[in-house]
């Protein structure tokens, strides 16, 4: 058993005990208690609204602290090839689970669009559902159902802001790939420049989406209450927007790490993991653009 203190350590990396997961959970649980009571409008002696602030503060500090530790371990060369592969596989499975999460909402969209709306209009074997229960309902997508929940609304047009956003996000995937190539070619300045461009594209995407939501609520009367169309539209684009936000924050962190001199042309899984995540967010958007906006 020779002493090997390089990255190519063939043996195992075993981390020492950490308190972060437990404290993280205290933050999460406080947040949930606060949020849940807020939703229920529940009045008790405990100041629930305070928990909604304290909980996330704990949560974000611990997430920062945890990742801080991991980044420093990585920079100190504590991780051997096996750990590197572990992170790759872990990130891959994690993104796969995210895909499945979006799958649930896409499933809801397809089901309502293709099945439940026509059924409510009396298609096929559901003739009496249409003619007896909802005789006045014309089943066309976009729909807010036979009850016209949320009132008249104007559906989201694909060839406006959404098309611009598609171009922005696809471009950002390219700039990110160029940044990756620059990192592998040891041209750090170029890499940072492309990273800043990618972050900027992400931020513009998010502002345009915010503007689109604002238009929807104020002008188009398209809200979360607008029947299944509003529900699926806002839940899908909303969760996607949340992922873009997380992705942008991660890109900013990576850019800061590039400034701090982290990563080598050979080993930079932090960069690659975030890049995978960004491409995943990009692919989800293309699916969204196709199935939510165009079809």
């Amino acid at each position, binding site marked *: 058993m020779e002493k090997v203190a390089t990255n190519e350590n063939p043996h195992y990396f075993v981390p020492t005990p950490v308190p972060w997961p437990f404290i993280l959970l205290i933050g999460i649980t406080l947040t949930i208690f606060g949020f849940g*009571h807020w939703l229920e409008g529940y009045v008790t002696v405990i100041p629930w609204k305070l928990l909604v602030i304290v909980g996330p503060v704990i949560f974000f500090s611990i997430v920062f602290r945890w990742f801080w530790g991991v980044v420093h371990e990585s920079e100190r060369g504590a991780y051997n090839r096996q750990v590197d592969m572990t992170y790759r596989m872990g990130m891959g499975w994690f993104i796969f689970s995210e895909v499945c999460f979006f799958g649930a909402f896409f499933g809801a969209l397809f089901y309502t669009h293709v099945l439940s709306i026509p059924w409510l209009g009396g298609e096929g074997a559901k003739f009496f559902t249409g003619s007896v229960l909802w005789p006045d309902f014309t089943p066309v997508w976009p729909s807010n159902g036979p*009850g016209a929940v949320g009132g008249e609304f104007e559906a989201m047009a694909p060839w406006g802001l959404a098309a611009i956003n598609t171009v922005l996000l696809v471009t950002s995937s390219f700039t990110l790939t160029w940044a990756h190539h620059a990192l592998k070619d040891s041209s750090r300045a170029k890499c940072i420049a492309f990273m800043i461009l990618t972050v900027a594209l992400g931020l513009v995407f998010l502002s345009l989406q915010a503007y689109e939501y604002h238009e929807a609520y104020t002008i188009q009367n398209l809200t979360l209450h607008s029947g299944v169309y509003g529900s699926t539209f806002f839940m899908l684009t909303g969760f996607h927007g949340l992922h873009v936000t997380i992705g942008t924050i991660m890109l900013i962190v990576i850019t800061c790490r590039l400034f701090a001199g982290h990563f080598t042309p050979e080993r930079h899984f932090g960069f690659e993991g975030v890049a995978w995540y960004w491409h995943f967010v990009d692919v989800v958007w293309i699916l969204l653009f196709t199935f939510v906006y165009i079809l």
Partner: protein
Amino acid sequence: MAEQTIHGEALEHGPQADHGHGPPKGIMRWISTTNHKDLGTLYLVFSCLMFIIGGIFSLVVRAELMEPGLQFLDPSTYNEFMTMHALVMIFGAIMPGFVGLANWMVPMEVGASDLALPRVNNWGFWLLPFAFVLLFSGFFMPGGAPQFGWTMYPPMVLQMGAAFPFMIFAVHLMGISSITGAINVAVTILNMRAPGMTLMKMPIFAWSWLITAYLLIVTMPVLAGAVTMLLTDKYFGTSFFDATGGGDPILYEHVFWFFGHPEVYIMILPAFGIISTIIPTFARKPLFGYESMVYALACIGFLSMIVWAHHMFADGLPLPAELFFMFSTMLISVPTGVKIFNWVATMWRGSMTYETPMLFSIAFVVLFSIGGFSGLMMAMAPVDFQYHNTYFIVAHFHYVLVPGAAFSIIAAVYYWLPKWTGVMYNEKLGKLHFWLSLVFINVIFFPQHFLGLAGMIRRTADYPVQFADWNMVSSIGAFAFFASQFIFFYILIRCLWFRKGMVKATDRVWDGAYGLEWVVPSPAPYHSFHEPPGEYVDAESPWVLDVDHGPMAARG
């Protein structure tokens, strides 16, 4: 972390190194541990605690059902206990039980030092107690605990009281816990196997967990999506499950059962792995048809994702959907039949001995098959209209979950307990525990087949008098079964804390046992392997690896 030592280096100081790097003392050891054995113990202790709590809930239910009429509970309190029994047993007892076994055994079986992501593993465990605090908090809120069944169907569940958001978020946390556990196990298996251990030489328990992990990663996020839609339907005005807005309550059932059916395989595939490990040990023969076992597992994993609507036959699905889900469901009996056949073939002409783990495993094969056959009966849509929502269903899934999943966990605990604690459990008491469990499990659930076929509806606190006799029998069985488990708790407590005068376990424990976990001493050291045990794995298959006479013994 700046203050952290690089443990990988410390390990190389020699065999004594892990004493210097022992865990912190007291409560902080358990809060901050990243060791797979510590976390496995925590998972198993948590699972045991939840078995007791869930068991008590079921006793409350059985006490109420002992006689017709309402004796102890009003119907909605009955529904709370019935619902909480299911949630606790599924998410608190069975799943963490299997994750605990995976924590303990998968790294040892594949020759890894620990799970791949030990800190995430810690988080994955501690999510559970917090999630259950949120879930149980419902008992103290206006409107009470969840009471519309563990399936949480809208629109009923949307009428729940103040506990609603806490139930939803508790499910989210349990889902995250399962996903982190699954990613950990999958990455450990794929990335950290000892050199020379190809996938097809891997112990079958690791294989069963790899497939389970895949199912968890696919379906748990879908459950999270389903309950998120419930949350927004109740509080944020969406109309996913509301027909006036163009949605459909049936949509929830589709999304839920897309998770829910693979979930039942998540609760049985690791059991298959355990049984496939134990039977060869006590039959002293290699597992019959190792490869076909692996393919059968993979096949079940795949099929489980295309059968979900068999839970919804009575919903009025379009005819082609009923036919598709009926045939795909029946198809699952093919790979399951392969497994049963292989277990029996493994025992065929083996040098069988009947230690407690083996007894539980044989009971598993027989009683799980009964549950499988009643499942096959219900797979036929026209027949299912008759059984739907009756006690026949209750009997069916309890046969696969109690003498199936729960017996396999008990068998696994008996099987590996000497490895964990270093002492042999009391075999006489173990056998007594087995025979009492075997008798009473059938006393509880076999009569429920008759009740269901006679038309007794499930999820109800009261019933017509003609069902009184079998309900009384079933309730007596439930109390007796619960009481028998105290033998098990006594055995566990003896082995964990009162080892004086008990027989020391050898490293190999069972003379028919094969695999890397039997290479390390009993009790297993805090870190099983300081370097990859490649030299041990060059036999043709893990089942040929013989600790006393095989290649490893030759190398001293």
